[in-house]
């Protein structure tokens, strides 16, 4: 693969550069947030709803008197963690299932695709709401629900890509050489699906961060008192007429993260010659 060329294309598009910069800033801020924050995030440390600009609380305090800046900086950690773990599992399993289904074909492929179709018929948030209702509201249930919810879409995309590779000569050669099923999948097919898997990971990652924050906003995701941008917005709405910034700041944080991720993954997809528009679910 021509990675230096990919890097060149990535750095040549201004949109992609903006995206990568946003993601890098967010990653650094999220990683170092525990060292930067002046107050503990769940502790009541000041008066209720104090205005920003004071020496002690730079961005003021929230509706029960917790330091707003600290909560804002820590507000992405849980949802990013949930999205990371869930999508890593989803893409790993999706790749294995998709590639083996495409190669083996037959009844196995049919069964996999009917299950995929079934999941795709159930809208994402309703699917997760169903699982959260059944298994209770916890981080683990959330990770499992999101992982399951993103699995089928990824299977469909990776499978259709694998189907274009399988008729190529080198797969046939490996078969004639007498390679085992396992070796063909692992040594021939997986490396040739790398690019689509990378793009899928990037796209699903940004989409799942949106989903986690939407779920938290709805009261189905991360539970209080954990600081989370989605939750902070739903708490801030109560005082929207007087304290607009309590809503606008977390809104800006979550939006800039997802915009950054999507610009970066779109640039990555373009650089690899794949069409990002068809991969979004």
């Amino acid at each position: 693969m021509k990675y230096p060329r990919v890097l060149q294309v990535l750095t040549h598009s201004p949109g992609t550069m903006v995206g990568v910069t946003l993601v890098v800033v967010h990653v650094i801020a999220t990683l170092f947030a525990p060292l930067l924050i002046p107050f503990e995030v769940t502790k009541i440390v000041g008066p209720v709803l104090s205005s920003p600009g004071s020496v002690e609380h730079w961005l003021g305090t929230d509706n029960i008197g917790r330091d707003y800046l600290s909560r804002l900086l820590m507000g992405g950690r849980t949802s990013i963690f949930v999205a990371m773990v869930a999508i890593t599992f989803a893409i790993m399993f999706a790749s294995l299932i998709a590639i083996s289904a495409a190669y083996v074909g037959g009844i196995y492929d049919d069964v996999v695709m009917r299950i995929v179709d079934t999941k795709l018929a159930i809208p994402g948030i309703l699917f997760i709401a169903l699982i959260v209702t059944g298994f209770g509201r916890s981080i683990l249930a959330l990770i499992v629900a999101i992982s399951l919810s993103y699995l089928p879409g990824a299977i469909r995309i990776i499978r259709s890509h694998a189907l274009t590779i399988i008729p190529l000569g080198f797969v046939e050669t490996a078969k004639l050489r007498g390679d085992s099923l396992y070796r063909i999948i692992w040594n021939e097919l997986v490396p040739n699906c790398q690019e689509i898997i990378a793009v899928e990971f990037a796209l699903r990652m940004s989409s799942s961060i949106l989903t986690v924050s939407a779920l938290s906003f709805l009261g189905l995701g991360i539970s209080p008192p954990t600081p989370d941008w989605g939750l902070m917005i739903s708490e801030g709405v109560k005082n929207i007429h007087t304290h607009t910034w309590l809503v606008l700041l977390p809104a800006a944080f979550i939006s800039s993260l997802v915009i950054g991720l999507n610009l970066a993954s779109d640039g990555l997809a373009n650089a690899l010659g794949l069409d990002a528009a068809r991969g979004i679910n």
Partner: protein
Amino acid sequence: MFWILIRRLTLSLLILFLAAVFVFMATEVLPGDALDVFLTADDLAVMEVEEIEEMRRDFGLDRPAWVRFWDWFSGVLVGDFGKTFIHEVPISEIIWHPLINSLLLGAVITTITFPFALLIGILTGYRRGSQEDIIVSTTAIVGYSIPDFVIGTCLIIVFAVWMPLFPAVIIAFSDSSPGELLAVSLLPALTVIIGHIAHQSRLLRAGFIETMNSEFVERVRLSGIPESRVIFRHALPASVIPMLNSFAMYIAGVLSGLVVVEKVFGYPGLGRELIEAVSRREVHVVQAITFLSATLVIVMNLLADFAVIILDPRVRSLKS
């Protein structure tokens, strides 16, 4: 062609059945039965074992899972979704008005989304690689990156707090007249439309570029037909196929989006009902709403499949 239609229909029915199995399993089999989900730890602490067993018998939950599934599924087919735990109200009664209200909002969203998506998709696809195309494409990415609930809340801030043109919370009841609901559906619809236009116009752009590069468009061009006719009469029908192929995803996206905007604006639809049902742990209501949504997605997808068969001669002539 007839057999392709029959095949698609059978497949849709199979998927509908599998969706029913999944919805039932996720709430009534794997985590224990509906009562296990409904009762909290606090309830269990104060209730006697005999009391719980009696409740279980009352709701018929002491029967084997497959009997309960069949009972539920045969009810669902005739529109009977069972009763709620609290007050034992028939669920079909609870969700009837919200369903109509959500369909109304979904229809408003769809009628605004597609004309704009078509226009933007053709313009950017036709002038591919131009400055305008890059600007519009980047704006589209930004458009679907901002969470629905953020856009909704920002619209409230602008149009209800800074410029008090609309009320911040919708005052409409689930049995309000369609006219009243239409009047309050503007901001909720606007909230999700931005993302949908962004996404659909990108799909159309991709399809349009592919069609314009194809041999048949080249031939039509060479025959000396005016460019506008080439675009609208010949290229456009073929370009909407990627859009139709992902129509199921669009409908699923609208339904997911409705859950969020209905919560943001307090619109009396299925999404708001769902969130309330989840918080009250009314398993059967959650089941009913999820299954209805899946049905809607499957039916719409089937219609889109038929449209593709009519539009695309390659699919039509496929002998499978």
